[in-house]
């Protein structure tokens, strides 16, 4: 919501985005420590290096808008203002988790703040996102759906079917491609037929734009323009944010080296948090204010870790819960016994 702001408001909203970027980074760092100390199962898909895309696009969303995300989704419920305690508890699989441990780190959502749903099968969330946009259109709710996917998913048939369907129905949806350059280990430069995935928008008669994914302001502007168009009934757009994850595809999932160390280093040196902090200082924000935000976020994350660590795991009897909305089915059939 950056349009028509006074210079002061513009800086304030930039500080707000920086806070969200910081919350995402510190959340992921804390989760990584919990993983390495053996307090959580499985793997972690970190947002590290991609925070500007998440903070910028989230800032462009309206309060009732819906985000449908991917396996790398930690940032969105955080940037939309979700409570970090239940989010961290979900990562640990605790009963107090935002999905009571049913979703976990690849499905980290918070519907109460519009981080509505995420699918961890590549491209599989986009058809669902087309559906939430369809409901918005039928209900005339004014809600816009933001659907994220990566460079890997850009090669999935589901993505192309979804873009076509959204285009023929002129649905209120923004497709946001977070192009971090690699589908796990396979480079986009090898696997994607075009240099800019945004070019594929032309096949669906919709605008396609490229944004610098290291700059939250650029991402916000691009998504805002696409959102305005969707909101005005003019249909979908594709925004491609060029970004980079400076960590592996997932923590706890080692692979052979697949990208030059100099490449990773050069992106680490351009870390979006550091560079955006520098820009805020240039724009006249006091270092003391940013230090204070650092401290507040640190305390918030520490409290979230404590909440999550202190929380109980679900009781074994919770196993059948939430299989069906029909509560009568959320237990074994009385006539059967399961060993």
């Amino acid at each position, binding site marked *: 919501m950056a349009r028509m702001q006074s210079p002061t408001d513009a800086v304030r909203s930039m500080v707000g985005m920086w806070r969200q970027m910081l919350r995402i980074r510190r959340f992921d760092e804390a989760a990584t420590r919990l993983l390495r100390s053996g307090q959580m199962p499985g793997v972690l898909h970190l947002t590290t290096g991609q925070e500007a895309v998440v903070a910028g696009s989230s800032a462009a969303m309206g309060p009732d808008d*819906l985000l*449908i995300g991917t396996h790398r989704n930690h940032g969105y419920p955080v940037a939309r203002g979700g409570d970090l305690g239940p989010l961290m508890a979900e990562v640990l699989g605790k009963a107090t988790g*935002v*999905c*009571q*441990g*049913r*979703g976990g780190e690849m*499905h980290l*959502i918070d*519907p109460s703040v519009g981080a*509505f*749903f995420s*699918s961890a*099968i590549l491209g*599989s*969330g*986009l*058809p*669902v*996102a*087309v*559906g*939430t*946009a*369809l*409901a*918005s259109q*039928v*209900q005339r709710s004014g*809600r816009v*759906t933001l659907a994220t996917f990566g460079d890997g998913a850009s090669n999935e*048939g*589901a993505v192309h*079917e*979804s873009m*076509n*369907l959204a285009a*023929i129905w002129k649905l209120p949806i923004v497709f946001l491609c977070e192009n971090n350059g690699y589908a796990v280990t396979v480079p986009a430069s090898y696997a994607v037929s075009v240099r800019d995935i945004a070019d594929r928008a032309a096949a669906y008669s919709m605008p396609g734009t490229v944004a610098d994914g290291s700059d939250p302001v650029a991402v916000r502007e691009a998504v805002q323009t696409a959102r305005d168009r969707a909101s005005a009934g003019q249909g979908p757009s594709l925004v491609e944010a060029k970004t980079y994850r400076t960590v592996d595809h997932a923590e706890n999932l080692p692979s052979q080296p697949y990208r030059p160390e100099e490449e990773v280093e050069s992106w680490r040196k351009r870390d979006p948090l550091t560079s955006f902090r520098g820009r805020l200082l240039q724009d006249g924000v006091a270092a003391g204010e940013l230090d204070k935000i650092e401290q507040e976020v640190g305390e918030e994350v520490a409290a979230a870790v404590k909440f999550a660590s202190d929380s109980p795991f679900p009781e074994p009897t919770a196993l059948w*819960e*939430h*299989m*069906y*909305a*029909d509560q009568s*089915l959320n237990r074994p*059939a009385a*006539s*059967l*016994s399961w060993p």
Partner: protein
Amino acid sequence: MRELTYLAAIREAQIEEMTSDDTVILMGQDIRANLYGTGSFLDMFSEERIRDLPTSETACVGAAVGAAMTGLRPVVDMGSASFSFVALDQFISEVSKIHYMSAGQLKVPVTYRIPLMYNGGVGVQHSDRPYPMFMQMPGLKLICPTTPSDAKAMMKAAIRDDDPVIVFEDTYNWSSRGPVADPPASAPIGTAAIAREGDDVTVVGIGRTVAFALAAAGELADSGVSAEVIDLRSLAPIDWDTIFGSVEKTGRLVVADAAVSTCSAASEIAATVAEHRFEALRAPVRRVTSLPVHSPYTPALERAIYPDAGKITAAVLSVAKQASHGN
């Protein structure tokens, strides 16, 4: 009582639910032009609620889920069961799992109509009976009504249900006529129906094999064998109480299922009865299923692979003649 065809009963259910609830929308390929005979509906409802779909099964199955998560109740006509394979990821990863993985925060009140078009010369790629695959996905409700009355009652229940429901329609039944009361007799999802009472052998049928089982039961009565026929009509959840109750009475079970034998619905029923009611059985359980081969185009070969009344009769006689295994 008024009689309707099965397809007219489905149509009436959709019209009634669309009239009483404006969040219900219809989606499907070729539905405006009424390709499959359920009716075009365009004379009654706005184009916005009657959505012809492009041939993009993945996007369309998923779009119905997303719409269901945010306040609509879509009914999706899949055209033919074999087309559902194109969208299988959406059924497995999204339709069946979203409610669970959100710990109940998201509801998915969506209905998919999946017609089964086999033994009609439509060839190997259009003749599948895939409901056992869907039975492997917890979180779905799966029904297969066989009478017009049940079709109307269960279709209405499916649209009103807050969980995803797949309606498998055996197209053999589409033109069959039967009485449909207003409102239709109750047929809750999750219940089976006893289509014919009997004492000697229980025959569970699914889809068109219910009609074959009833025909077989008529013939068997002439030979002095009394068969009880159960119309399963709900594949998930399965009404174990009705099946167990019947087997406890008869001591013998034949399950007729047009799915391929391996891991069929019949396999699940046979295994579960053997596991939980072994002491009631006086003969081995028999399955009458499709042979594990593809459905060939030529009628000279195709007919042979599916269950029919003759095969069911033979299976019933084979167990009826068996002495008790235990005493």
